[in-house]
């Protein structure tokens, strides 16, 4: 879309093509003018190639997590059967996978897990499924709590804001990793009768509860700062004068304006929550056998890295790709929403 440079002397002999220039010119202008901010952002995001590529990768990972049962059907193996134990040629006498690079073969694409001999490809797929679902739930909870407390603190100010601020500082003072490890057994025990087996869903619930309990403070602070500046703006004053109730103002006036920081923060929060879920399992308080888990693959892999590096390469590479794609997506989303910062 380049408009001919109209120099001083060229004006008198405008080329016959002028009319269409103006025609698509105006048409172009109209489309630009008619777009709502959301569409404008979508147009700008669409043009950002890296953003689109990373979005595709992220969606691919979510799809894999969602369609895990379908993949299981097609692939024919499942993450629970102990293939290595049943047929004796898959594991050697030291319980390490036989064959090349961790036992990769036609029917076991990513090879065999040492010791128990489960299928690594299915372990990774279901491991991602567990980690992504748990992290998604935790992130949603973190965003809800963070936005709520940030908004209430920022909008009402005064004593409420002071005490919410003190609560945030207090929780920020906690060594979060240590707290996770200490609180997991407490939370799990609280829900379960002694002789009952802890259902995985409940353990996931415990993890989500623990992660979000110490996860919302960063977002709350961000939202509080944004609310403080928004509160002074005229249109909020106007709404107040028009007799709107505080909750209506928060919902109708403030929230729509906070969509940008919330969305940007959420896209950055998810990968870090996934890494926290992986950390919990790595430290041994997360998901237990036989639930497939991304973090635990690293814990086991690190131990036997010397004998069977393959077992760690697949989850590791998958994690790097996933986190890089997410970070890129987060950056592009931020650029699309508030271009001022520019890349």
């Amino acid at each position, binding site marked *: *879309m*380049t*408009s001919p440079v*109209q*120099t*001083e002397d060229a*004006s*008198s002999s*405008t080329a016959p093509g*002028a*009319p269409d*220039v*103006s025609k698509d*010119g*105006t048409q*172009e*202008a109209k489309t*630009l*003018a008619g777009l709502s901010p959301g569409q404008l952002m979508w147009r*700008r995001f669409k*043009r950002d190639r890296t953003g689109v590529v990373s979005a595709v990768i992220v969606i691919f990972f979510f799809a894999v997590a969602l369609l895990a049962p379908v993949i299981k059907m097609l692939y024919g193996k499942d993450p629970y059967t102990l293939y290595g134990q049943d047929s004796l040629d898959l594991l050697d006498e030291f319980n390490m996978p036989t064959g090349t690079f961790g036992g990769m073969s036609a029917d076991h694409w990513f090879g065999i897990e040492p010791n128990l001999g489960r299928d690594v490809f299915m372990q990774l797929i279901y491991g991602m499924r567990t980690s992504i679902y748990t992290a998604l739930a935790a992130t949603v909870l973190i965003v809800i709590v963070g936005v709520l407390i940030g908004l209430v603190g920022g909008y009402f100010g005064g004593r409420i804001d002071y005490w919410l601020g003190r609560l945030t500082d207090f929780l920020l003072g906690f060594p979060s990793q240590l707290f996770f490890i200490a609180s997991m057994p407490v939370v799990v025990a609280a829900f379960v009768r002694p002789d009952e087996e802890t259902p995985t869903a409940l353990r996931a619930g415990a993890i989500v509860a623990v992660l979000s309990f110490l996860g919302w403070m960063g977002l709350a602070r961000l939202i509080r700062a944004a609310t403080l500046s928004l509160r002074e703006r005229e249109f909020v004053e106007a709404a107040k004068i028009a007799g709107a109730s505080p909750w209506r103002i928060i919902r109708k006036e403030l929230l729509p304006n906070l969509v940008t920081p919330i969305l940007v923060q959420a896209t950055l929060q998810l990968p870090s929550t996934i890494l926290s879920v992986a950390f919990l399992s790595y430290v041994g308080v997360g998901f237990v056998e036989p639930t497939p888990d991304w973090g635990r693959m690293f814990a086991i892999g690190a131990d036997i890295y010397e004998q069977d590096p393959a077992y760690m390469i697949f989850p590791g590479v998958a994690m790097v790709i996933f986190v890089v794609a997410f970070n890129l997506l987060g950056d592009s989303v931020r650029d699309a929403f508030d271009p001022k910062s520019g890349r």
Partner: protein
Amino acid sequence: MTTLTKTEETPAPNAADPFLSVRDLRVHFSTEDGVVKAVNGLSFDLERGKTLGIVGESGSGKSVTNLSILGLHNPQSTTVTGEILLDGQDLTDVSGKQLEALRGNKMAMIFQDALTALSPYYTVGRQISEPYMKHTGASKKEARARAIEMLGKVGIPDPKNRVDDYPHQFSGGMRQRAMIAMSLVCNPELLIADEPTTALDVTVQAQILDLLKDLQQEFGSAIILITHDLGVVANFVDDLLVMYAGRAVERGSVREVLKQPQHPYTWGLLSSMPRLSSDVGEQLQPIPGSPPSLLNPPSGCAFHPRCAYAELVDGGLCTHERPLLPDGRGAACHLPADRKQQVFIEKIQPRLG
């Protein structure tokens, strides 16, 4: 360093030449959405000791012009063409170092809001003495004394103590005065004031303008005043330039343009201003539509989509041929002189009062 393309040899400077002359200035920004032609062929002159007012809606290219004079645009995304002669020296092809030596020394700029233009991390005194030390090689002590002197000159009470205060400790007006002191510390010959008083209330506004007037008398510097407030322009500037969509559409002495405007856009501007003399009930007449997109400015006369008199021009000339701005007094409009005069007398003059 700005990527400048030189158009022709610089003429030898002679007494008759204006102190500052801008010839066919174009400033194009390449952005993701396309090339923004912020300034699209602008020419004007400014004599020493004179004040030129530039008025126009926001987005008409006023500030961009002056930033390009100082060469402050980001070279990667900006292309500046045309000629800027300052006291005979073409700023478009001087090296970065030379330009730096000129900025703050021979030419200086006053920004709109001193709160954002002054760094919050350093004292006012230090920010004033910095350029002075650089350009005149003065010692810290001398520069500090100079800063105190300047603060006093711009009317800040008890400058000896205030020199070590931070910008956020000044009131709006005082901050603006401090910034003016900062710009004038090396007695610049050209002073560009980019809407210096917009952020201030009316009473302080008048004081600042008088201050600029006095300083002009004292140092004989040329001032470019950028504003969208015609009231400020009326009794401060000598000549007036009306800009629209990156080009000048009307030029002339302030009395001529305000009293005898020739361009429909200037008419619109003047008639959308409340008059003391007109009675309260009278409706103000805003200019319909909104400023054109600089991504793809309208063809022909950029004002034609919003101009109520475009039909009076026969043959639809306005829509596909750009009217030229003659030198000296004049307006870039296809309306024939007689019809223009007639419309002016019937419709515009009564409202000007």
